[in-house]
């Protein structure tokens, strides 16, 4: 049962990620990224992280990716020209990716101490998470909220037209 779920959604993840690379239109790429994110949420559920699964769907698929599609629609971004990367990416980037993936894979295949996932594993409840977040980690939480506030201000300042530009435009 768990094996079927894992294979199905891991396959969807990989297919979505590959489709993200192959599609030339940004909106198709965005949709395949949404598929990746929703199937990752299902994988989080199998790992017992139910709050994160919901947050993944609400925050990533429901808010961030809507912003992406919104910007694609707003700027009317057309098809991009397909390239195979620059000289730098061929000489440094791709070899580095291959090496990193090979190292990770070899380490993981050889590793002994890692456990397994079962359907009957304990589910981390939202209560435990919130108790930890609001008691022990309250300072990082507040700092992050300040970061989000700064991001809001930055986004508003960047996206709004300057006064001079508006006068020139009208």
């Amino acid at each position: 049962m768990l094996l079927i779920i894992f294979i199905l959604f891991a396959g969807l993840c990989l297919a979505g990620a590959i489709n993200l690379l192959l599609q030339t239109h940004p909106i198709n790429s965005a949709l395949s990224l949404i598929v990746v994110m929703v199937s990752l949420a299902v994988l989080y559920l199998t790992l017992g992280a139910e709050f994160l699964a919901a947050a993944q769907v609400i925050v990533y698929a429901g808010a961030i990716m809507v912003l992406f599609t919104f910007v694609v629609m707003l700027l009317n971004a057309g098809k991009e020209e397909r390239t195979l990367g620059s000289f730098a990416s061929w000489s440094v980037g791709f070899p580095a990716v291959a090496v990193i993936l090979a190292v990770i894979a070899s380490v993981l295949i050889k590793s002994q101490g890692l456990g397994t996932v079962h359907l009957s594993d304990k589910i981390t409840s939202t209560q435990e998470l919130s108790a930890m977040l609001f008691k022990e980690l309250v300072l990082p939480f507040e700092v992050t909220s300040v970061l989000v506030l700064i991001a809001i201000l930055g986004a508003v300042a960047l996206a709004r037209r300057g006064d001079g530009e508006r006068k020139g435009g009208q």
Partner: protein
Amino acid sequence: MIPISWYLLLSGALFSLGVIGFLIKRNLITVFMSIELMLNAVNLSFVAFAHELNPVKGQIFVFFVMMVAAAEAAVGLAIIIAVFRARATLAVDQIDLMKL
């Protein structure tokens, strides 16, 4: 039952696909999407390790990554809109002058 290492391998594969997308894509928005893909891959490995070691703290780390990713997406897309206004293009090859 499934070994944790499968999740980690999946995460590694997704991360590599994200890097490849970052390198070969030529549209600013899609490049940005590849970065989101890498963040998601890292989140998956965090959750997998959290299942192994310390469920609560590991998952809260992912929660913080999500918050930062949301902030990053808002600012990044605002920058993309500003760049598009100045240049009327989204192709990364034509906006590499580092000035508007």
